[in-house]
């Protein structure tokens, strides 16, 4: 039934597959207008833009690379400087330590020497003073002993036979040898 309809209608209908000349002509006009537009206007602009953009990106990348390289170089430099500084600090510390030790040792030595010197001078002085004391004692003790002896002798010689014996021995000893007064003194002390 449908086919009858189609057949009936076909006579007065156009076939959509048969092109009309005006249709082709206007299609061609549209096509060439658009082709010209894209070919000569839109796409060249787009190409220029793409080139510019590529350049810009490349430029920026080069710039970034450059900055990166600089930063790296600087980092290396800083690291080197830091290491140098550290080494220098270490050296200075070592130096200070040895210096300190040396100074302490020096001072110790000097102090020891000084102490020795002081001790020696003190000893000499003491010795000198002792000598002086001995000398003065010797003379004084001699005198004293003689005085004492004369006193003792003077008072008891006549009284006692024992005393006269002591005096005699003392005088004998004095005459017999030239003894130091110290030897005489204890003898005298015993009296």
């Amino acid at each position, binding site marked *: 039934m449908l086919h009858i*309809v189609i057949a*009936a*209608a076909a006579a007065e209908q*156009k076939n*959509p597959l048969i092109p009309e*000349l005006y249709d082709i002509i206007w299609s061609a006009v549209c096509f060439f*207008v658009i082709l010209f537009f*894209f070919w000569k206007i839109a796409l060249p*602009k787009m190409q220029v833009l793409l080139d510019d953009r590529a350049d810009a990106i490349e430029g920026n990348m080069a710039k970034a690379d450059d900055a990166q390289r600089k930063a790296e170089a600087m980092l290396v430099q800083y690291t080197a400087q830091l290491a140098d500084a550290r080494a220098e600090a270490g050296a200075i510390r070592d130096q200070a330590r040895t210096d300190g030790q040396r100074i302490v040792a020096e001072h110790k030595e000097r102090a020891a020497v000084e102490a020795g010197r002081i001790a020696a001078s003190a000893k000499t002085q003491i010795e000198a003073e002792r000598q002086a004391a001995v000398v003065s004692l010797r003379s004084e003790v001699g005198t004293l002993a003689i005085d004492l002896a004369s006193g003792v002798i003077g008072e008891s010689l006549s009284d006692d036979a024992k005393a006269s014996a002591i005096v005699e021995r003392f005088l004998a000893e004095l005459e017999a040898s030239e003894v130091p007064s110290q030897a005489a003194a204890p003898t005298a002390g015993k009296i």
Partner: protein
Amino acid sequence: MQTLHCVVNLSIFVDARAELTAPKQEKALLEIAVNLMVPSATGDGEFHGPTINEFFPEVIFFAGTNFEINRIMLIRFLAVAALMLVFWLGTRRMKIIPTRGQSLTEMGLDFVRVSIAEDLLGKKDGKRFLPLITTVFFMVLFMNITGIIPGLNIAGTSVIGVPLFLAGVAYVAFIYAGVKKSGIGFFRTALFPPGVPKFLYIILTPVEFISTFIVRPVTLTLRLLMNMIVGHLLLVILFSATQFFFFTADGGLKLLGGGTLVFGLAFTLFELLVAVLQAYIFAILTTVYIQLALAEEH
């Protein structure tokens, strides 16, 4: 009743339709849509289906000459104008860092340049044929889109002129590419593929000839044309059926109008997809033919 019909030029076939009964209606509609032929119908004689004359509206200018202009031609001019306006505005002041409008334009141009031309032809040949491929893609796209723009409602590509002419362009382009590359050898490799026993050429050569030089342009033309014609007829049927159900039919049939309206809106979106897809297919096939012609030297 007239709101939709003012857009589509319906003709009346009252006599033949009288026999059709309502239950057969949907089957008939479908069949007609598939066959792209003649009117659909309902029993009461008030529903007017679309006809193929939709695509041959009355002439507005230059009647009787070879430069007749009808409504569809005007829609094509409008599509061309819109296309050039969009891309002129988009490429007028291009900056390295794009504005939002420029990004969209660039995205469109880059899609053709990268995804179609350079992908298939490589950088060098891609650049050579880029204006052609870009033109084909956007011309088809903009003329397809008019099919779902309210007030225009018919695709500029739904009349055979544009599909046929563009298929011709693709035909010339791939033959040009092949001949430029390998001279007369292009036809030799196309018709006598190397590496095949001699006697097979008796079968192979006619097959190759038909598939390369006849089937290619014919399929390019018909695929686009038929998609657009069917899409248009389908939308017309759905919306005029909605109109009929809402304002002419009685009682329960009014409910059917809701269904056809929903389908109509869904198919409008579908037509948008088809418009983009067909433009893409047309452009990529043109490119593939060029690529095959360039690669045909072994």
